[in-house]
């Protein structure tokens, strides 16, 4: 079956380093099985847990198949560093990296950095779109064949294939920011990394519509048919047309509210969500925005391991 499946680890739990090695091993071993996990998302809200991208880089050589999609705090950080770090994760994982911008509206994130004040959801998601834009431009600032090693002329690179980006964006407090480029890191193996956006409100739905490859509809936001329909429509009314996943919370024991995270349980959850918002089937969802897959939100690494090994057994 072809249910797009992601597993996410809660931000507070990303310091459980040893347990994360079990998650990566377990997730990697689902490849080729009934319910393969495609993406591992380490969540990062910037004010709890470890730096998810740094942890993901450590997991990269310990895995072979799964795509590593850390959340990357973007509101108070430098877009240039976001670009080089994500590109480097793609090199370290030999082409299995993605990233998920995480925005900070919390005053505690602003005061920990001390550069500017907190802003609301609309402003931080608008900024995240500009950050994602320049991050993509920096990845692409080296053409694939920029390194030439031409002994005849003594040139290591063809500088005509390494480009300034000269980007201007607007930050969350309305100030202009600029990035000159080019990147210091050559084009990552994937060229462009897939971008995952968590959709929890109208602002994040608009952001997903603008630049997401994968949009994850938060279970908390999917309170009723009307809200779900509105957010899905918003996600679909943009250039990005992302794959939509529904987030499903796991218990500490790694179970969903409907029992073990088996293929049949998860596809039933997809169908149920689509029925609720008036889409007949997951297949139809590519035309009329609907849910196509699942992201399992694990409170701990142990819960993720339990869910993934339970799924194996039950199928």
């Amino acid at each position, binding site marked *: 079956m072809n249910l797009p499946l992601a597993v996410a680890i809660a931000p507070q739990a990303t*310091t459980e*380093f040893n347990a994360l090695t079990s998650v990566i091993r377990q997730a990697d071993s689902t490849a080729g099985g009934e319910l393969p996990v495609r993406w591992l998302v380490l969540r990062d809200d910037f*004010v*709890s*847990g*470890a*730096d998810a*991208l*740094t*942890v993901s*880089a*450590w*997991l*990269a*050589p*310990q895995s072979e198949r799964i795509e590593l999609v850390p959340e990357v*705090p973007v509101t*108070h*950080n*430098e*877009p*240039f*560093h976001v670009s*080089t*770090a994500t*590109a*480097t*994760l793609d*090199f*370290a994982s*030999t082409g299995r990296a993605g990233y998920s911008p995480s925005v900070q509206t919390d005053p*505690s*994130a602003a*005061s*920990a*950095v*001390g*550069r500017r004040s907190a802003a609301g959801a609309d402003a931080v998601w608008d900024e995240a779109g500009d950050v994602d834009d320049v991050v993509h431009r920096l990845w692409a600032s*080296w053409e694939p064949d920029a*390194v030439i*090693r031409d*002994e005849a*002329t*003594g*040139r*290591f*690179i*063809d*500088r005509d294939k*390494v480009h300034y980006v000269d980007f201007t964006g607007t*930050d969350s407090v309305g100030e202009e*920011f*600029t*990035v*000159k*480029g*080019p990147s*210091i*890191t*050559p084009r990552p193996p994937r060229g462009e990394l897939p971008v995952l956006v968590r959709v929890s409100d109208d602002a994040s739905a608009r952001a997903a519509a603008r630049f997401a490859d994968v949009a994850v509809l938060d279970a908390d936001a999917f309170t009723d048919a009307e809200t779900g329909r509105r957010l899905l429509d918003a996600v679909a009314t943009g250039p990005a047309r992302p794959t939509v996943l529904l987030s499903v919370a796991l218990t500490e024991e790694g179970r969903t509210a409907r029992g073990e995270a088996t293929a049949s349980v998860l596809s039933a959850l997809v169908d149920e969500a689509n029925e609720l918002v008036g889409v007949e089937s997951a297949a139809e969802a590519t035309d009329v925005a609907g849910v196509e897959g699942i992201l399992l939100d694990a409170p701990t690494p142990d819960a993720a391991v339990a869910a993934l090994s339970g799924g194996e057994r039950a199928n």
Partner: protein
Amino acid sequence: MSQRQVHLAAHFPGVNNTTVWSDPQSGSNIDFSSFEHFSRAAERGLFDFVFLAEGLRLREHKGEVFDLDTVGRPETVTVLSALSAVTRRLGLVGTLSATFNEPYDLARKLATLDHVSAGRAGWNVVTTNDAFTGENFRRGGYLDRADRYRRAVDFIHAARSMWDSDAGPFDFSSEFFSIFGNFPVPSSPQTHPVLFQAGDSPEGRDFACANADAIFTRHAALEDGKAFYADITERLARFGRSEDDLKVYPGVTFIIGDTHEAAVERSRSVAYQQVSGPGAIAFLERQWGRDLSAYDPNGPLPDIEPDDGSGNLSQGRVQHVKDPRPLIEEWRRLARDKNLSIRDLVVEVSTRHGFVGTADEIAGSMDEYIQERAADGFILIPHLTPGGLDEFVDTVVPALQARGVYRDEYPGDTLRDSMGLPGPTPADQWAAAREASDQPVGK
């Protein structure tokens, strides 16, 4: 044991003309497999650490991206973290700017690295002063030269306060920062990563003595190294510290041969790989401050005078010389006396390799440096990626072991253990020692 022990570390071949990219054995400077190969070799040789440099903007020359040297590097913390999964004891030291980072974010990343590596993280603290690099960052070139060390001192203090908090509250106010909150990462195995400093000015040396665990120096010659070491030891005392608290590692190049003559010949041939004809012209252009592309690298030195206001011909490099004219005169004299072409001259003045000889000769020289207190260890700078350490590890390391001055196994688990450093000192104690000294470090 009366003999001081030799320590070794390895600089990943950098974005400069020490790194030879034209050799058939030269591999990728960016693929993770190169970093893995290099680090595994260092660990096989029981090295203290692998060291990564930093450059946050591609270097430019005559207003264009400089294309003659190796170009491109990974993000430092990310690649070190990946390396922690393929090594077990090797320290992982990254050069990271205290100018274009913020304490909270960087302290959190380094604490994460120290956790995933089980206590092997190190941070070479540098300042990045110029507006040229700042163009890649939100705030641009915001910091006056005079403030760069002062912000770095406060940056380190703030970071140490966060590391000391053990997933607790921090509150740090200074001229440069007003930050508070909860630091979300529990104490890492080393509590504080090992801090390095690489500046060489008197203020840079005081900065190291007041803030760092180790110094990366350019003083690679024996007498020069002894003078530097003695100077550092004297400065340390002013901060209530001894030579055991701060390790001195010069960066050194090396060329190994089966015989001394073979090594000398190899050194010469590597030097000409390091300096191509166009590379030699570009080297002179940086000193002359003007276009010299009409000159033949195999011909005599330019007879025209350097441009007066030459500062901006080359961007993104550490500048060591202010007025180029005395140096140019010296080079002209040298070229005349030895009948050197432009390329010969640049080879002569820019590529002198630190240790050239047989494995036994190199081991003997290194031993002498350490016993004479010219250094505590060496950061080897090989000229090839990724195999540039292999021969050294296979031949010089056993020769050092045979002399009884190099270990047979790692002494412990952490980078501090490998370097023989004491445990971490809390932020407040560092601050008190700076206050108690009469040195105006960062003030």
